[in-house]
């Protein structure tokens, strides 16, 4: 197996009496896509939020490389090398595509606190922006206002912004949500392209995409992991079949 980049052990998140995430452990490896699937309300997004610091865990630990990042703020975790995209498109709608990615790339510039130099003068930042835009296939959209591009393009922009922060570990929360078949296909190609250098956690509903992309699958129901394994193993698992046929009370 490749190098482990993120280790989450026994993560639990309680909201009052409800355990949204219940004793979940995940390892993410470089050059490896780990998909998390499950019905609505299974705790998939909550798990992503625990890893990215958007929510603090009730118990359990998260380590990025050899660094324990449990309880860190999202900004600190981001700077430590974890990037994420959001289920609901979370971009800067009034800004151009370029400026969206620029803000992401600039967060890694050592001189981000400079006050009197023009922001577009930083060569290293420019290179980072161009790479992220090219990878995500938005070259023809750089000057468009983010609020005016199509939904699929906004999802691509989400990925571009995540890439521009040059993370080692990427959490993708339903990158295909609301996409048409053609858009979904190009997103799958994009995700395969970025897989090479990163450890990826993919939360996704689109089963075709999940089985095309995932190296490992974890199935969650009611906050708990009910199965984990290769796509072939999961496909054959009777418990998973039951969960997806709706026999589980949600």
């Amino acid at each position, binding site marked *: 197996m490749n190098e482990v980049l993120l280790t989450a052990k026994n993560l639990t998140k309680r909201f009052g009496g409800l355990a949204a995430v219940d004793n979940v452990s995940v390892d993410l490896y470089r050059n490896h896509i780990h998909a998390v699937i499950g019905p609505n309300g299974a705790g998939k997004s909550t798990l992503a939020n625990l890893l990215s610091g*958007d929510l603090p865990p009730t118990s359990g630990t998260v380590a990025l490389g050899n660094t324990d990042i449990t309880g860190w703020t999202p900004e600190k975790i981001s700077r430590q090398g974890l990037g994420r995209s959001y289920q609901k498109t979370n971009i800067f709608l*009034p800004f151009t595509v370029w400026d969206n990615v620029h803000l992401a790339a600039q967060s890694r510039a050592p001189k981000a606190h400079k*006050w009197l130099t023009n922001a577009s003068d930083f060569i290293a930042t420019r290179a980072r922006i161009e790479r992220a835009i090219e990878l995500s296939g938005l070259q023809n959209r750089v000057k468009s206002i983010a609020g005016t591009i199509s939904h699929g393009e906004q999802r691509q922009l989400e990925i571009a912004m995540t890439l521009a922060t040059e993370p080692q570990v990427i959490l993708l929360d339903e990158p295909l949500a609301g996409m048409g078949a053609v858009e979904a296909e190009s997103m799958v190609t994009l995700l395969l392209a970025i897989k090479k250098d990163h450890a990826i956690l993919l939360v996704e509903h689109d089963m075709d995409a999940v089985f095309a992309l995932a190296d490992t699958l974890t199935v969650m129901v009611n906050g708990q992991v009910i199965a984990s394994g290769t796509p072939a193993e999961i496909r054959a698992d009777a418990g998973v079949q039951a969960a997806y046929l709706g026999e589980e009370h949600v």
Partner: protein
Amino acid sequence: MSAQQANLEKLPTSIKLVLGMGLVALLAFPFVGTPFYTEMVTRMMIMAIFAMSLDLLQGVTGLVSLGHAAYFGLAGYALAFLTPQGEAVSLWWTLPVAVLASGLAALIIGFFVVRTHGIYFIMVTMAFAQMVYYVFFDNRALGGSDGLYVNFKPSAAIFGWVPFDLDSKRTLYYFTLGALLLTYIFLRRLLFSPFGRTLSGIRVNEHRMRAMGYGVFGYKLAAFTVAGALAGLAGYLWGTQTGYINPELMGFHMSAHAIMMVILGGMGNFAGAIVGAFAFEYLLHVFKDLPQVGSVNLGKHWQLWMGLFIVLLVMFAPRGILGLVEKFMTRKGKSDE
């Protein structure tokens, strides 16, 4: 929560042209206007600096402060305390000290308030400003409700050599104009620097900024401090011009006026704040001079007319006077083609 329409940040040529003409008019004004109007325009320019400082918070960072006058007033008080009874004090150290005092107060208060969001930020900034207000209002040693006199305008003398004399109305006018221009240039550069881009990102989507690794607290605190210091520059000039400081300068009304100026002119590009300050002060002058009609003194109710005017403007020109000019110019440009 987030402004869906982008600020008018990069000024179109048409607006730059209008601003350039305004600058020429300001440069020539003391030679054509009466001393009364020279003084009035000086006050407008001071308010423009104050409005620009607020725009850094309100228009750029998206932090609506209802207590910004506190930092304006504090620098004025600093000047009053530093000026002895019987002689003038040097401009060269009192100006930086007064500006730093306001900046320091903003740093300390900002440390608490920039953690809050939305309506809470508005309330907490106002609460702190009211605290500062009453500290001065209720304290005889600090001038109390009567305020303090600045008996002598600061002296610009350097070892006996006097490069200019602020006692002259015309000199004070140009000194204020210089301060206005420097503040504008500084803030415009700041707007397009990585720091300024970060602030505008925080305005639009603070959550995503954090997810991308920005420690937003530090950026917001820095913006709050700079805005407070620049408000202090305006307050120092106010104290210099009027020779009198009282708690009202730090009051709720003063803070609200600054907000209205920024909205009136157009937020987020500093030029709008200047235009808004001039427009507000001019309208104030016009409305206060309205005649008595029957038993109603229209001028006494100037706040009513001002309120109506701003409501109408916000309804028909949500991007302020500058946005209106831009819309008018682009439409005209298109029909010319």
